[in-house]
């Protein structure tokens, strides 16, 4: 076990209560680990405590995927959920009650039917010469294993699916071609099925006891508290407002690995059933899409994409898949980074954030337009006893905002942070007049922000070149972006306007004209097609 079992006293002077036992489903049984510190990462637990050294630390920031493990649990809908997660920045306790696999487990787990000396995923990768130095390989194996598990046996994997599944894995040796080939070849090998019935049983047996035991302990602050019901969660928040709040942990992990902070206490909101939910509600102003703060980015994006299919490519560029599987929309919003990509979009969609606090008669809600939630660089309106509860996205009487355009510009297309992000929601009448426009911008101000001047320049005007030019001018003059390693202020300002211009060009282009965007899948494919024709 780690050496820091003697945790320092908390803000109230009392030492934290001992961490709850941690149970994992591993190689066909439930393994219990005691006294795992609140800030132990899953990577450290697997490598150092369980000796599973195939799990590699490459970056310790969730960017390279060498630490990727496969995790299965019962998702919010109760169904078996397979996820590839970055163990380097995931708290070990966040895996409590889950099944975990590493690369060496695939040939050792009695729940996996053996078809040969290697699992088909591994065999395909070896056959395709997909490993050179091999250090990233176990992480690729696990991303491929989750891709493999998430589909009916034998169904072919497309190139796009392979790229998406591997979007969080970096390889410095191969150039990826053989790995993508392996992803497409693996399902043609004899299938290795997982005994899901046994897995369900084991998962049920591994479930942690309800937390905390009511009533809340009087003196000892929790070392790791992950309440499932909202009342307990809010009560804990009110009682211990200084305890760090963690959701998906994709940011909190960095406090540990990069800022070298010790967290002796953690309040984990990700187990709270009420906050995991995504549903549609009817209210006085029409329908609302309500996304719980603990819903994963993956699930949240899927729900948004169901209403606005054009957002698919934008969501595909949000981090890598393991981060989308692990991180939460609420965490992204609460974190308040000016370069977070979900906020400009949510602002454009007119989203409100619902803040929750413990009340005598149940949870008390406070609702703010998202753009008003941000008060300064990494500062929000969240009070010490509040938690981000829900994101409410108005749907009107169908889907509000018939047109939504989201743009992101970054050095690398996949898994990179925006230099500039622009989201535009547009409602045009039959004559082409802009009835309503909302614009969210990222990377151009200390906070994710709303471009009100540009909106005003569009509102009531015909959607045509001179209108858009005027809105571009407004957009470029209403922010004072900074220069940093991602981009200069001048570039950010210019591109912010150009992205609006590109939106206009895309809407105005003739159907058979060459595409105007490189950052979307369809034009990218169209370009390839013409390339192929010329080559034929």
């Amino acid at each position, binding site marked *: 076990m780690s050496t820091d079992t003697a945790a320092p006293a908390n803000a109230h002077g009392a030492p934290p209560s001992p961490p709850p036992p941690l149970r994992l489903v591993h190689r066909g049984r439930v393994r219990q680990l005691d006294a795992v510190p609140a800030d132990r990462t899953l990577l450290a637990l697997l490598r150092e405590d369980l000796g599973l*050294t195939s799990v590699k630390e490459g970056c310790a*920031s969730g960017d390279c995927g060498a630490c990727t493990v496969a995790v299965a649990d019962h998702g919010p809908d109760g169904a078996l959920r397979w996820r590839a997660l970055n163990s380097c920045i995931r708290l070990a306790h966040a895996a409590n009650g889950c099944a975990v696999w590493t690369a060496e487990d*695939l040939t050792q787990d009695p729940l996996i039917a053996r078809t040969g000396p290697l699992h088909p995923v*591994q065999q395909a990768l070896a056959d395709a010469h*997909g490993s*050179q130095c091999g250090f990233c390989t*176990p992480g690729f194996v696990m991303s491929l294993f989750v891709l493999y598990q998430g589909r009916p046996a034998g169904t072919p994997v497309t190139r796009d699916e392979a790229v998406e599944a591997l979007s969080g894995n970096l390889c*410095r040796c191969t150039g*990826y071609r053989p790995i993508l080939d392996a992803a497409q070849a693996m399902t043609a090998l004899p299938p290795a099925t997982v005994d899901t019935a046994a897995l369900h049983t084991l998962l049920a047996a591994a479930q942690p006891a309800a937390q905390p035991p009511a009533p809340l302990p009087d003196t000892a602050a929790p070392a790791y508290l992950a309440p499932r019901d909202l009342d307990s969660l809010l009560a804990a928040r009110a009682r211990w407002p200084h305890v760090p709040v963690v959701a998906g942990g994709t940011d909190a992990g960095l406090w540990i690995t990069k800022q070298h902070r010790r967290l002796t206490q953690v309040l984990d909101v990700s187990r709270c059933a009420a906050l995991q939910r995504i549903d549609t509600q009817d209210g006085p102003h029409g329908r609302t899409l309500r996304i719980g703060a603990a819903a994963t980015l993956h699930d949240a994006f899927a729900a948004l994409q169901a209403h606005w299919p054009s957002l698919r490519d934008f969501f595909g560029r949000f981090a890598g898949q393991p981060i989308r599987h692990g991180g939460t929309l609420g965490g992204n919003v609460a974190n308040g980074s000016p370069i977070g990509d979900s906020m400009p979009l949510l602002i454009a969609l007119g989203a409100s954030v619902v803040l929750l606090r413990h009340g005598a008669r149940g949870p008390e809600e406070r609702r703010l337009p998202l753009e008003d939630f941000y008060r300064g660089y990494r500062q929000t309106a969240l009070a010490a006893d509040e938690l981000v509860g829900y994101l409410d996205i108005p749907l009107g009487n169908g889907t509000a905002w018939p047109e939504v355009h989201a743009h992101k510009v970054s050095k690398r297309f996949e898994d990179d942070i925006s230099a500039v992000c622009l989201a535009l929601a547009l409602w045009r009448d039959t004559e082409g007049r802009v009835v309503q426009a909302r614009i969210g911008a990222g990377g151009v101000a200390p906070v994710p922000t709303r471009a009100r001047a540009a909106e005003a320049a569009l509102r009531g005007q015909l959607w045509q070149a001179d209108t858009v030019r005027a809105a571009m001018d407004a957009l470029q003059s209403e922010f004072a972006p900074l220069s940093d390693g991602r981009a200069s202020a001048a570039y950010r300002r210019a591109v912010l306007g150009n992205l609006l211009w*590109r939106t206009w060009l895309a809407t105005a282009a003739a159907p058979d004209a060459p595409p105007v965007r490189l950052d979307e899948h369809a034009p990218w494919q169209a370009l390839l097609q013409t390339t192929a024709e010329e080559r034929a």
Partner: protein
Amino acid sequence: MNAALPLDTGTGPACGSPIAHESAHAQVAGRAPYVDDLPEPRGTLHAAPILSPVAHGRLRGLDVSAALALPGVRAVVTAQDIPGDPVLAAFAHDEPVLARDTVQHVGQVIGLVVADDVRTARAAARAVRADIEPLPAVLDPRTAHAQGAYVLPPVHVRRGDAAAAIAQAPHRLQGAFAVGGQEHYYLEGQIALAIPQEQDQWTVLSSTQHPGEVQHWVAHALGLATHRVRVECRRMGGGFGGKETQAGHVAVWAALAAHKVGAPVKLRLDRDDDMLITGKRHPFAYDYAVGFDDGGRILGLELSMYVDCGFSADLSGPVADRAVFHSDNAYFVPHVALHSYRCRTHKQSATAFRGFGGPQGMIAIETLIGDIARHLGLDPLEVRHRNLYDDAPAPTWTVPLPAGSTPLPPRRDTTPYQMRVEDNILRPLIDTLAERCRYAQRRAAIAEWNARSPVLQRGLALTPVKFGISFTATLFNQAGALVHVYTDGSVLVNHGGTEMGQGLHTKVAQIVADELGVPVARVQVSASDTARVPNASATAASSGTDLNGRAAQYAAASVRQNLAAFVCGLDGCGAGEIRFEGGWVLSPKARRRFDDVVREAYANRIQLWSDGFYRTPKIHYDKTTLTGRPFYYFAYGAACTEVAIDPLTGELRVLAVDVLHDVGRSINPAIDVGQIEGGFVQGMGWLTTEELVWRDDGRLWTTGASTYKIPAAGDLPPHWRIDLWPEPNREDNVFGSKAVGEPPFMLAISVWEAVRDAVASARRRAGLPADGPLPLDAPATPERIWRACQAG
């Protein structure tokens, strides 16, 4: 016959076969251990480095009290704790093991904290306060050059009279540009585990491309003879040049810490620390003037290279030399003046990186040729063609020769450093590729498409590579190996090379298997170990297989000769009549199993193991004038790349890549293709997304994968075709093969030139001049492309 050994029937030669990497199955199964995965000896402690927060300053003192007060901290190690030489045993002897009186870059290691666990050590290292009086820092090579601040003296290579030739040429271009450095981003960070042994002896487990140097440096710092230190490396999680010298620092630090606390110490650098501490590819800045005729033929070139070496020499001398050696790439330049300035800046000490200066040399002339073509309104491929080395007579002398200058060679086949290009295959290679990828048709189609496209512009380029193979430091072109045949007929090979993923051990096993005529599965290659083969050169310069493969082949041949002589004695025949094939030993009289022969030979006291030694023939050169024959042969290749850019944002997509590359006769086509693909993508990263950013105070801003972007799976162009040129090496090299590690990296210059082609198109559409040098530096990030599309 040992049941554990594979059957000897039906196996053909191993060389030429695309067999899997020797560790492939272990790697995919998660059972291939790296240094950090090995069981730690009892009592192992963990170290973390204390870093300078200042780029340049006087180090007045360290306050370590807060660090020592943390529970679990055992010691702080500083320069005072070095029992041997406090200056690293690097060849220039200019780098302190730990900063002493001054600090010379942000991230320079001042000391180490040793603690019970790595988290405590890292937290404690951050609690150390350094008292530093800041001094002025130089952060760019041009400023250093202006101040005359060099890590090594400038080098000039001249032939003819470049200034006069340029002045008299019908056309001239001149300008300046720059290319960025590159972080290796080996997925396994730097790591070493130093284990004290009995009687002042040491074992060091190091992730290193150069165990011999680690051994030398550790012994030197500990004040011990070299034989006291044994260094072992089974495999690295990537190297790319970043673990050539840089692994030595880490191992020395671990050993010093272990020496102070008297216990094994592991030092595994956190990624951010690794990027802050260790050297990277050298950034280059250039000034140039080039004169050329109406057809685009270069008549004279003057090129100044300002090499950003960082604070110490490290390998900057040979890197800068190689840049000079490759600033011709594939082209004959009659009158030439090359100036190489090895500039000292207050940054990480730049080091080896795949290509080793070759890319920085080559990109200069490829950039110039692209500009020349646009200036003349010619197709760049046509201009490239016209400038290729060939057997034609060199132009007659038209300008008066300055006293003492080198005259022009009689033919267009001699490099500026006086080496004749004897094995040139580029003309047929380029023509084959151009035909295969339909260069001309696509060129026309792209022009038509660009004219119709409202925003996006596409670009196309086909560029060649000619890369010299041999260490430029001639003495490193030697290697040793040991081949052991055990009495059951199994074979163990140890050689001086290291395995970093490039498949060296696999190729060496193939070579030894064929030499002994046994299946490759019988041959095991052991970990690299300084106690077995001494004084081995770094596994670098693409030379791993050429050198170690040959040495192992010689060792195996020696064992084979012993066995053949033994069989001759049994059968009364000549040694030349004995064949070793498929696990059999065949004489005119009998057919015997290899393992039977081995067993009988052992019983007759025949030596079943041998050493092998190889040194590269033909090479020599004068280090002061950089003239001679530094390379045994050249590796060639060419790539055609198509890209699309968005001038509104500068975004870039690489659409299609076709490669035709020369690996000679391939020992392992799967491994060679893997090297070509991986090298290309890494080169593409260097020239596109991989931007190193230093802040104004000299601190590297890009210290992690969140800010430093190497290519991801989605960056692989969907059209991707790699072909091998079907001709053996014309020089006598192992199996007729050619080195492959580095040359393909420079195929990615086709991406750069395709981007510039697209930028020129965008500029023309915007009504901006596109017939002069394009205002674009590398890497071509979105912001840089956007700027280049509109800069006046």
